[in-house]
C-alpha cells in the first residue's frame, strides 16, 4: 500500500507538471534516511516515531520545494529526453549524497512501541504496524481525493493540469502553485519512505527499486489518473503476492507481463486517458 504513496506523487507530478520525475524514488529513500536520522536523535518511544516520520517527510518536502524552484522549473515544456536525463542525474546525485552521509550499510528503524503486537488472521500473523499501513493507504487516497475534488486548491491543481496558461490569465500564480504541487508530491514520497523504514531496511539501492515499481503501478493504472494509481498499486500488490505464493520464481516476471499486457491492450493504462 505504501507503493501507492510513491506512485501517487509520481502521477501527480506528471499529471500537472508534465514531467516524469525519475528522482521520485530518491525522495522516498531520503524520507527513510531522514526518519532514521531523526530516530537516532529522538528515539521511537512515547509516540515520537510519528513525529520523526512526519519530520522525515517534511524534510523531503522542503528539499523538493527547493529543487522545483531552482532546478525543475527549467524543465517544463522541454523535450522528454532532457527531462529524463535531468531527473535521472538528480537521482544519481542525491543517492550518492545519501551514501556519503549515511554510508552503504543497511539502516533499520524499530517499530513504534504502540504497534509492536501482531494480529492472527486465518493462521497468518500480521504485525499491527503492517495493518496500520494497509489501512493508512486508502485513508490517504481518500483524503487526497477530497482535496483534489472539494477544495479550491484542488480545483486549481486540476485546472492547471488542463491549461496552465489560461489559469494564469485568470489571476492564479501558477508558478507558485507548481512549487506547492511538487512539495506535496515530495511529501507523499518522503512519507512513503518514512513509514516503510520500520518494515524494510533502509539501503542505498532502495530508490531505483521503488521507482521501477512505481512506474509499473502508474503504467498499469494510467499516468496522471488518481484512482488509476490506486487501482494500479492494488493490482501490483496482489499479482506480486500471489505470484510469490504460486510461482515463486516468476513473481516479478508476472508483474512485468501484466504491465506489458496493459501496454498492448490499453497503452494509456486502465483508468488513464489517451494523450491528445
Amino acid at each position, binding site marked *: 500500500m505504501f507503493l501507492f504513496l510513491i506512485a501517487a506523487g509520481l502521477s501527480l507530478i506528471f499529471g500537472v507538471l508534465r514531467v516524469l520525475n525519475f528522482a521520485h524514488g530518491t525522495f522516498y529513500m531520503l524520507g527513510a534516511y531522514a526518519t532514521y536520522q531523526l530516530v537516532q536523535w529522538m528515539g521511537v518511544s512515547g509516540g515520537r516515531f510519528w513525529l520523526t516520520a512526519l519530520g522525515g517527510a517534511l524534510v523531503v518536502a522542503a528539499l523538493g520545494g527547493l529543487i522545483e524552484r531552482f532546478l525543475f522549473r527549467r524543465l517544463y515544456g522541454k523535450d522528454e529526453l532532457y527531462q529524463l536525463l535531468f531527473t535521472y542525474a538528480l537521482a544519481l546525485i542525491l543517492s550518492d549524497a545519501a551514501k556519503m552521509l549515511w554510508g552503504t550499510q543497511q539502516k533499520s528503524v524499530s517499530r513504534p512501541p504502540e504497534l509492536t503486537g501482531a494480529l492472527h488472521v486465518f493462521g497468518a500473523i500480521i504485525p499491527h504496524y503492517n495493518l496500520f499501513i494497509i489501512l493508512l493507504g486508502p485513508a490517504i487516497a481518500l483524503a487526497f481525493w477530497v482535496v483534489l475534488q472539494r477544495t*479550491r486548491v484542488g*480545483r*486549481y491543481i*486540476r*485546472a492547471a493540469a*488542463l*491549461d496552465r*496558461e*489560461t*489559469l*494564469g*490569465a*485568470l*489571476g*492564479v*500564480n*501558477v*508558478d507558485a502553485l507548481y512549487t506547492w504541487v511538487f512539495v506535496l508530491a515530495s511529501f507523499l514520497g518522503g512519507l512513503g519512505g518514512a513509514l516503510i523504514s520500520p518494515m524494510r531496511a533502509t539501503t542505498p539501492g532502495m530508490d531505483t527499486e521503488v521507482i521501477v515499481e512505481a512506474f509499473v503501478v502508474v503504467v498499469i493504472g494510467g499516468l496522471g489518473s488518481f484512482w488509476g494509481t490506486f487501482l494500479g498499486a492494488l493490482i501490483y500488490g496482489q499479482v506480486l503476492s500471489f505470484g510469490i505464493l504460486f510461482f515463486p520464481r516468476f513473481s516479478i516476471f508476472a508483474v512485468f507481463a501484466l504491465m506489458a499486457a496493459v501496454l498492448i491492450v490499453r497503452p494509456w493504462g486502465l483508468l488513464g486517458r489517451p494523450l491528445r
Partner: protein
Amino acid sequence: MTAPLLEVSEIHTAYGLSRVLFGVSIEVGAGECVCLLGRNGVGKSTTMRSIMGLTPPQAGRVAFKGVDITGWESYRVARAGIGFVPEDRRIFADLTVWENLDVAQRGGGWTTERVFDLFPTLRQLTGRNGGYLSGGEQQMLTIARTLMGNPELLLLDEPSEGLAPLVVDHLDEQIARLKAEGLTILLAEQNTEFSLRLADRVYVLEKGAIRFSGAAAALRDNEALRHELLAL
C-alpha cells in the same frame, strides 16, 4: 485630459522568429468600448496576448492606469484588473461550470449569483462538465469566468466566432449590458456588423500595424471606407 485606462505604445511582438506586430499603438479610455477590426492573422489576438503578458512584446510599452505593466506575468496583469477572454475559449473541460467559475474567483463585486443573472442559461448547468457545453454556452462561460476576477478592462477576443447568428445577437445584448454597467471593453472582431453595433471607437489592423483609427460611427455610415479597409 486624464490618462487613458489602457495605453499601448509602439509594441512589437513576435512568436519566435515570425514577427507579428510592427509598432501597434492603441488607447482605451475608461468606460469606452473599443474595437480592433481586421481579418484573420493581422495581429488582433497577438495584441491582446501582448497586453495580457502571455506573449510579451519585444519592444514598446503597455501601461494600465498609468502603471507600466510591460513584461508582467499574466497573473499579475489579471490581478491588476485586466480580464482576458481568449478566442478559443479555453474552458477547463474536466471541471464543472461552477468549478470553472470558482477557480477564477478573486473576491470582489462579481459572484456566481451576479454572473448567473447576466447569463441565466449557466445557472441550470452548474454541475455539468465544461467540455459538454455547446459553443454558445462555452462562450458565455468564458466571459462569466473572466468576470469573476472583477476586471476593470475586459479583453474580448472574437467572441462571436463560430456562433449561430441568433446566439450572437444574444451575446451582443449581454456585452452591451456590461458596457452600460461601466465596464471598459476592448473587443477584437472580424464580424464588422456585430462590433460596429457595440463599439465607440475602432482601430483597423492590417499586417501587424494600425491602418485606420476613428469613431465607429464613421465606419458605420461610410460603406465605401468600410469596403476599402476591410475588403468585405
